[in-house]
């Protein structure tokens, strides 16, 4: 049995077509990190919330993220480190401040995999229902 049960709230409400288009345009990008790292990284709700904030609100410092994260700054920094390892965020140093931004292209393998597998069977289910309707006649 799987112990991991992530609940992705990355949906059209949050991301909108801009994000979708951005991901789609980057589907061909070769990703240096394995899918497993991506799945595990996004499985943590706190980490995912940080990533979603960066997706919605753009580049932010650790301090700004901490102010609304409900956890300590070292904890936020640790999550950002894991996100960076997975290629999901990029950091930019400016004086003493480090700014973090979401790298939407890193989601491509997840979207790609899900769409291919679920998409295949969803279409087959559609075809099955079409056949069942014809069997009525």
């Amino acid at each position, binding site marked *: 049995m*799987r112990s991991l049960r992530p609940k*992705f709230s990355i949906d059209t409400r949050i991301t909108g077509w801009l994000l*979708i288009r951005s991901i789609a345009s980057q589907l061909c990008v070769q990703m240096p990190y394995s899918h497993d790292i991506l799945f595990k990284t996004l499985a943590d709700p706190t980490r995912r919330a940080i990533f979603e904030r960066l997706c919605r609100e753009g580049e932010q410092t650790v301090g700004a993220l901490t102010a609304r994260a409900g956890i300590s700054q070292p904890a936020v920094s640790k999550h950002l480190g894991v996100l960076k390892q997975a290629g999901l965020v990029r950091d930019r140093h400016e004086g003493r401040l480090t700014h973090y931004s979401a790298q939407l292209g890193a989601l491509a393998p997840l979207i790609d995999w*899900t769409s291919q597998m679920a998409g295949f069977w969803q279409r087959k289910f559609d075809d099955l229902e079409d056949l069942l309707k014809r*069997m009525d006649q």
Partner: protein
Amino acid sequence: MTTVATDTRSIVVERDMPHPPEKIWRALTQSALIEEWLMKNDFQPVVGHKFNFRAQPVMGWNGVTDCEVLELVPHQRLVYTWNASGEQAPDGLKTIVTWILTPHNGGTHVRMEQSGFRPQDEGGYRGMGGGWPRILGRLEDVAAKF
């Protein structure tokens, strides 16, 4: 970081269909009917029967799926392997497809689970066509099954 209990994932697709289980069972187990909605095949409803699904080859996939019937409970449960074939067999997909039919509101709840995807199997299928909004909308459902 959260640890993962196993290295494989499943895809689950479920749908309520306004048809009796007996009728859906025919569509799942009669070769000519299976071809109409899934793929060309030489399926026989016999446990241990080995068969193929054949589709147009596409880049990275020879179009052939090697299967064997593992379980057969008429009108209720059908299980077969779904594996890569030929030269692609050693490193390719080794999955199990389980169909479960449950009477529901005068129709049937149809559940398909394809289990056993390893991390390296993500590129197993090509051909999107589903449309991004629908797929993103289903991401949560699919992800919840990992």
